[in-house]
């Protein structure tokens, strides 16, 4: 079957790969671009483990065809740490034990990043709404909510 070229900016780096037609962004990222940070959970758009940010919007990479992302800027958790320094969300998740098995964590963090880009000082309700499409079966959500609120506070302190 003919391969299709896909060119995108992945975590700030321009990348191009030939992929099979109809490949989801999730599978393209993991199998072609070598970024295994988005996780394949349900492949139905229910669990949110595959969440990535495409051109500033949170998307489900399992339901997005890679070809539709030609020219797009794609952000995943693999691109969050800069120069070995964890992103405030990563730090807050670690400090607050917001990850247990860790499978939902990349999706949770990208959902939180999309929220904080839009609402830098979110309320608890904002956070709950922001991660309402992401399922966690370990933590009971409370540590995740607290971690996101904590990251928002540390962001605003750094900005002040």
């Amino acid at each position, binding site marked *: 079957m003919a391969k*299709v070229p896909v060119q995108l900016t992945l975590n700030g780096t321009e990348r191009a790969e030939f992929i099979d037609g109809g490949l989801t962004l999730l599978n393209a990222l993991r199998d072609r671009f070598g970024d295994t940070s988005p996780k394949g959970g349900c492949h139905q758009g229910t669990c949110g483990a595959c969440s990535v940010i495409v051109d500033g919007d949170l998307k489900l990479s399992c339901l997005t065809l890679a070809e539709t992302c030609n020219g797009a800027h794609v952000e995943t958790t693999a691109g969050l740490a800069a120069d070995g320094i964890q992103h405030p969300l990563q730090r807050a998740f670690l400090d607050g034990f917001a990850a247990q098995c860790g499978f939902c964590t990349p999706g949770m963090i990208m959902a939180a990043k999309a929220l904080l880009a839009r609402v830098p000082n979110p309320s608890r309700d904002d956070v709950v709404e922001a991660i309402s499409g992401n399922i966690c079966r370990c933590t009971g959500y409370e540590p995740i909510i607290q971690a996101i609120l904590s990251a928002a506070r540390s962001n605003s302190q750094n900005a002040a």
Partner: protein
Amino acid sequence: MGLTLQSFPAVAEAGAALTAADSRYLGGGTLAVRATNEGDVSFSTLVRVTDPTLGEISVNGSQAHIGASVTMSAITRHPDLAAIAPAARAVGGPAVRNMATVGGNLFAPAPYGDFAVALLALDATVHFSDGTQPIEAFLAIREMLPRGRIVTAVSFTLPPPGTFRFRKVSRVKPKGVSVLTIAAVIGEKDGAISSARIALGCLADRPMRAKAAERALAGKPRTSQGIADALKVSGDGTSPITDAIASGWYRAEVLPVHLKRLLLE
């Protein structure tokens, strides 16, 4: 079997491509790509339209026109669509709302399609490249559209302030799949209901009107006593779906409860 994506700049070209038996339209992907992920091999070609006008919202006075590719998120953010934003916000989580389109929602099988329930209550008009159709007629034949006919937009009259009511009932908070969804446009004059249009989701395989309840509300005050007759007949003509979320029996039992809350809130 591989999957091929065909992108076209114009609706007409995409329509021609969709005449192939193994093709399906791709909107936001939350239905079509999900189907492929679940092993649906009834189609091998996905066809999409990149025409940016399909992603536009225009509001002139009380008339709203929403392109088929407009996402639920775009509706929630639009300053002139605040009245119906709760219906768009009821669809999925943030990522789904960034993807799911108005056009796709019209075709979403129960228990999905919450926004289409709102559009039915709003008496929307469905636009194609070659004509229009009232939403109620469209919903009745949505699987039987001629191949290649593409929904391009919906339009409707914005409800007067305070008349649009919407409730999605789900077991998981804050977000879950619908047990049932109710949208209503209730007009009142001189202390009595002057017009009522009620749409139900999950009470059939597609959004449907609660016509008996609408008739029973006419001229009645919006009080517990005034709506009692409407609640008694709210399930008339329904055939609630049974799925992993709820049984049809349960949906039928709780419909009057939630309709009452919606009407009296």
